[in-house]
């Protein structure tokens, strides 16, 4: 009979306390995580779902799709499309624009009101579905990982069924702490800025010092919240706790394991950079090499461009699978780490 992994963990915990050894070693976490991810393809599926639904997470957590977050910024940085079109097409566009402006202005105003209302309803609905999808995929992934760690065969049915129980606390964790933190920071800095502007002399200097302290405190707060948000979902999913309770326990664990977590997170970031970045660098190398060698050697240039293009196509097709495996791998690392400190450092109270 095989002994579940969590039993090993408990035994290992006892040894750890006796020997005063670290709770985890990165080598062991990586080795064990790779072993279970390689063996259980269902983790890839949930990893892909977590990467698909959870575009807002980063390397210190589960998902590897942080690059997707940059897309809106990229669009924000580009000039307004209508502005550019007008500049390119010149006066001819002006008359078309004027005609359409006249047409749209003759549409009754309540049409736009209804249209706006319906689009708003769709956006809200989409956000709610995305939040539930994110919570469910995260819950399913962690449940499947835990099943694999307990030497059981993870299945979509079991993992999903258990994940349904944690959807509410996970949504709470996604929204409430970040919202409270954002509101607190806005209020804090609004008061401090008003203080700096409205006062003079010694009081102004005090406000400036308070602002500097506030900046450091807010950096610390955001970092602690980010790290606590790694443990909190695991407490909610694996220990079936509510959102607030999970966050409190996550915070306690973070205080005790702060530097170990930062180190593990940094190594995860480097790993993600290598896994996603290396193929990109190779592709860009081929494409640039092809473009530069076109003049000197046409056939070599075309060959390199075609090969680079082919690699790019393969990368595009395989990106989701790759990000799914990476997400599952990183989620496994943190789940194994959580198992090794679960119940310690007052996280049970």
């Amino acid at each position: 009979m095989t002994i579940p992994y969590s039993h090993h963990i408990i035994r290992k915990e006892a040894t750890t306390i006796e020997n005063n050894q670290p709770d985890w070693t990165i080598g062991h976490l990586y080795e064990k995580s790779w072993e279970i991810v390689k063996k259980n393809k269902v983790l890839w599926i949930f990893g892909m779902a977590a990467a698909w639904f959870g575009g807002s997470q980063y390397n210190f957590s589960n998902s590897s799709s942080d690059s997707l977050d940059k897309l809106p910024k990229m669009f924000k940085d580009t000039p307004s499309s209508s502005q550019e079109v007008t500049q390119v097409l010149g006066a001819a566009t002006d008359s078309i624009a004027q005609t359409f402006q006249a047409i749209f202005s003759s549409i009754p105003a309540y049409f736009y009101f209804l249209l706006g209302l319906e689009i708003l309803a769709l956006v809200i609905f989409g956000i709610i579905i995305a939040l539930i999808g994110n919570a469910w995929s995260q819950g399913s992934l962690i449940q499947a990982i835990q099943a694999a760690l307990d030497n059981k065969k993870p299945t979509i049915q079991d993992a999903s069924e258990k994940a349904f129980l944690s959807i509410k606390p996970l949504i709470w964790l996604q929204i409430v702490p970040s919202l409270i933190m954002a509101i607190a920071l806005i209020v804090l800095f609004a008061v401090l800025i008003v203080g700096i502007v409205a006062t003079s002399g010694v009081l102004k200097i005090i406000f400036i010092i308070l602002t500097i302290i506030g900046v450091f405190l807010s950096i610390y707060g955001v970092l602690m919240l980010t790290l606590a948000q790694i443990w909190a979902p695991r407490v909610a999913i694996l220990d079936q706790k509510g959102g607030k309770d999970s966050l409190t326990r996550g915070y306690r664990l973070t205080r005790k394991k702060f530097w170990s977590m930062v180190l593990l997170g940094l190594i995860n970031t480097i790993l993600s950079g290598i896994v996603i970045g290396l193929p990109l660098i190779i592709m860009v190398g081929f494409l640039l090499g092809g473009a530069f060698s076109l003049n000197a050697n046409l056939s070599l240039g075309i060959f390199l461009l075609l090969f680079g293009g082919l690699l790019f196509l393969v990368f595009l097709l395989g990106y989701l699978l790759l990000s799914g495996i990476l997400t599952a791998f990183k989620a496994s690392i943190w789940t194994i780490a959580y198992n090794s400190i679960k119940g310690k450092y007052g996280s049970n109270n």
Partner: protein
Amino acid sequence: MDQTIKPAGFRLRVLAHLNEWMLQMLPHTLFWLYISNSQTLNLFVYNLILYLIIWLLPSILLTTLVYYPWTTIHLQGNLGKLITGLKVTDQNNKPLTYKRSLFRHTIGYAFSSILFSLGFLSIIKDPQKLGWHDKAVGSKVSVTANRWPLALIVLLLLFILNGFLVSSSFNNFLNGPLINEISSLMSTPVTPEDQSELDPILLEN
């Protein structure tokens, strides 16, 4: 689990899906025909926005929030499935709850469509003919009656009807006055005088 209930295979489910899709397309193609009959550009834009407000946007919400869950709970399947003789239940052959039905049609389908719809294709190989979305919500699709010939005929009729409506819309658009107005707009600048001629047409509507 009741062994006499036959799980629906991939082909039957595709047939049901196509029937449902064609049924849902019908109001859209009718609207497109109506829009394509617009005599002026003003009227065309007016009708287009009307289509968005009256049908396109509400139908996305209503289909997801009301139609799919309601039919799955009360009729055990949407119209496409009923025509094909299929029903959706939980693993104990009981109707799905509202939450599970909604989940199945939103997140469940999105989950199955990941990586070239591998979750839908998995129905082919799965011994119980379950897709990832079925496994995720604990649902199954079973055959209630052998109605695939009827489903095929309905699909063909719906395909012809939708095809006719789409081609008529294109014909109306390409042979009507609208295309001339658009091409003249592209070639000559519109003056405020032209606009003053266009406005009364819209006001009449």
